[in-house]
């Protein structure tokens, strides 16, 4: 079931949805615990995702750490390979750079290097994305890096529904999952069922059906793509919006089939353009669907600059409805 069909349900925020996932899984499985900077009772995480959890589960299971990103991820790994199921929070995704060895060389490779003797069931939650005027060190989108690391899974929820369902799946998964949250989505409301559900990895969600152009979009860009699609519909252009929901595994089939149907594709992601997520999607299509493409592939992404502070500048670099509409018109 897609988020957009779920109109009848209660509406909660992305932030609340994530918290529900954490809480339910902590109730369900004693091995699940949280660690990170200020995730506990004094702050509840920079975006308040863990509000109430330290109070409910105690400080043993909701652990404030020193500002030590390498040790946070390393400790999660050590716990994961000895029977626990840690969920580490890195306060801003940009700071994953400080833990890249632990993420990319240790968590991702331990199972393989050791011939399958162990697994590393852990989740690293990280807020990413631009748009909050917090400049170059707090605004990046680095999904592409993690897609380039075999052994990691990468989840990119765009709605409260997906956020909850994917996070629960991530926690139950036996591999290290890089879980990307977009900082502008935390406050966004959406329908989320009361009953338990999971969103499987590797299943894209068609957030809007259409027949003229396919847009592949992730995270906050899904909403901008939907707005663009709505506007384009008024001009008689029928846009299909596909949200991969996980980048590893990537539901290539749904994307390729959509493009086979529409013959045209625009890929909309944050993160700078070069060697970003859009490059991989474009490459797959160039390999698998080139005969169906009636126009060049278009990528809409951030230009190759750091994210600037001033809203005037920042708005210029973040993809928006207008840029998406222009790209769609370019491929029509």
């Amino acid at each position, binding site marked *: 079931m897609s988020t957009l069909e779920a109109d009848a349900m209660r509406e909660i925020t992305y932030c609340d949805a994530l918290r529900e996932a954490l809480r339910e899984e902590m109730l369900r499985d004693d091995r699940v615990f949280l660690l990170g*900077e*200020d995730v506990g009772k004094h*702050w509840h995480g920079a975006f308040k995702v863990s509000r109430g959890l330290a109070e409910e589960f105690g400080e043993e299971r909701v652990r*404030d750490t*020193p500002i030590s990103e390498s040790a946070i991820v390393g400790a999660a790994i050590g716990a994961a390979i000895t029977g626990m199921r840690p969920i580490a929070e890195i306060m801003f995704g940009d700071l994953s750079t400080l833990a890249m060895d632990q993420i990319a060389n240790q968590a991702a490779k331990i199972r393989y290097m050791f011939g399958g003797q162990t697994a590393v069931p852990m989740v690293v939650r990280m807020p990413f994305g631009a748009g909050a005027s*917090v400049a170059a060190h707090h605004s990046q989108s680095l999904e592409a890096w993690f897609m380039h690391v075999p052994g990691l899974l990468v989840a990119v929820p765009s709605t409260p529904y997906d956020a909850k369902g994917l996070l629960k799946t991530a926690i139950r998964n036996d591999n290290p999952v890089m879980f990307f949250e977009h900082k502008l989505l935390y406050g966004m409301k959406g329908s989320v069922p009361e009953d338990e559900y999971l969103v499987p990895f590797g299943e894209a969600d068609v957030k809007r059906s259409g027949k003229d152009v396919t847009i592949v979009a992730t995270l906050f860009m899904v909403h901008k793509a939907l707005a663009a699609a709505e506007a384009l519909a008024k001009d008689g252009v029928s846009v299909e919006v596909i949200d991969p929901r996980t980048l590893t595994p990537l539901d290539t089939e749904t994307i390729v089939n959509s493009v086979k149907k529409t013959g045209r594709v625009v890929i909309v992601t944050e993160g700078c353009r070069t060697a970003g997520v859009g490059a991989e999607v474009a490459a797959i299509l160039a390999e698998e669907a080139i005969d169906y493409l009636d126009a060049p592939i278009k990528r809409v992404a951030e230009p190759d*600059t750091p994210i600037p*502070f*001033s809203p005037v500048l920042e708005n*210029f670099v973040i993809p928006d409805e207008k840029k998406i509409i222009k790209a769609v018109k370019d491929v029509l």
Partner: protein
Amino acid sequence: METYPLLEKEKLKELYRKMLEIRRFEDTVFELFGKNLIPGTIHLYAGEEAVAVGVCANLRKDDYITSTHRGHGHCIAKGAQLKRIMAEIFGKKTGYCKGKGGSMHIADFSVGMLGATAVVGAGIPIATGAGLSIKLRGTDQAAACFFGDGASNQGTFHEGINLAATWSLPVIYVCENNLYAMGTSQSAVMRIKDVADRASSYGIPGVTVDGNDVLAVYNAANEAIKRARAGKGPTLLECKTYRRRGHSRFDPATYRPEEEAEAWLKRDPLPRFRTQLLETAALTLEEITRVEEAVSAAVEAAVQFAMESPYPTPEEALDDVYA
């Protein structure tokens, strides 16, 4: 009251003026932020003025500093212009970084302020590098590196200071220990009381001072910088201090026990130094008042400059990526 080396009157006045500039500047930023005139987030230096000012008063213009997310005070203390700092915080084109950096990323290379990083601890090895550069160029410059108690748990603290110690670089590492990293108290994330004790891991001196006493800071930094310039290597200088407000934006800082906060806030470095100046007759009330008036005017002028300055044009976002 301890005794300190006698400072000239002009120097004392300068210390007071800089501290006050920072205080007024920060109080103003806080207000303007509340009025939605400042985008993003802010981390104010109010309460910690004695640290930046006490340290930087020992530095020459050609000496270096590196700074943090809580950097306005460092900029002011090192001699950057209030108006261009304020303009940057507003995201204006006339700001030091043309609006690209904002509150967390101000730099003024013309006064040796090598910039603020918003990655906690990331400035530490960079300051080490500035020290290395000084050594390689054979000058008698020095560098001061500011960072928090929280930053002292980062790997970069360990690596950066060890490297400077190994090479006897002219850097002083100034830990602004305000007892908290966001909502996390120091005691929850390390088993030691004084961060300065970590100096022994690197075979360098570690000194802890009252960071709310500008003369104590001045004095300790003076020693450390003398050592640095003399080629005797780095010092870890810990200054115990306290934020007057929350960590950022609207953090009410309720995690700080009331008695603790009360006790610390009473030790506000500004009235304390003011009283000291008057009691020791170093400055007259009139002189002090003149400083206060000048500072108010300067901060007001900075706000006006920032308000009246233009925003950058959107396309400027594409500039300055490569040299």
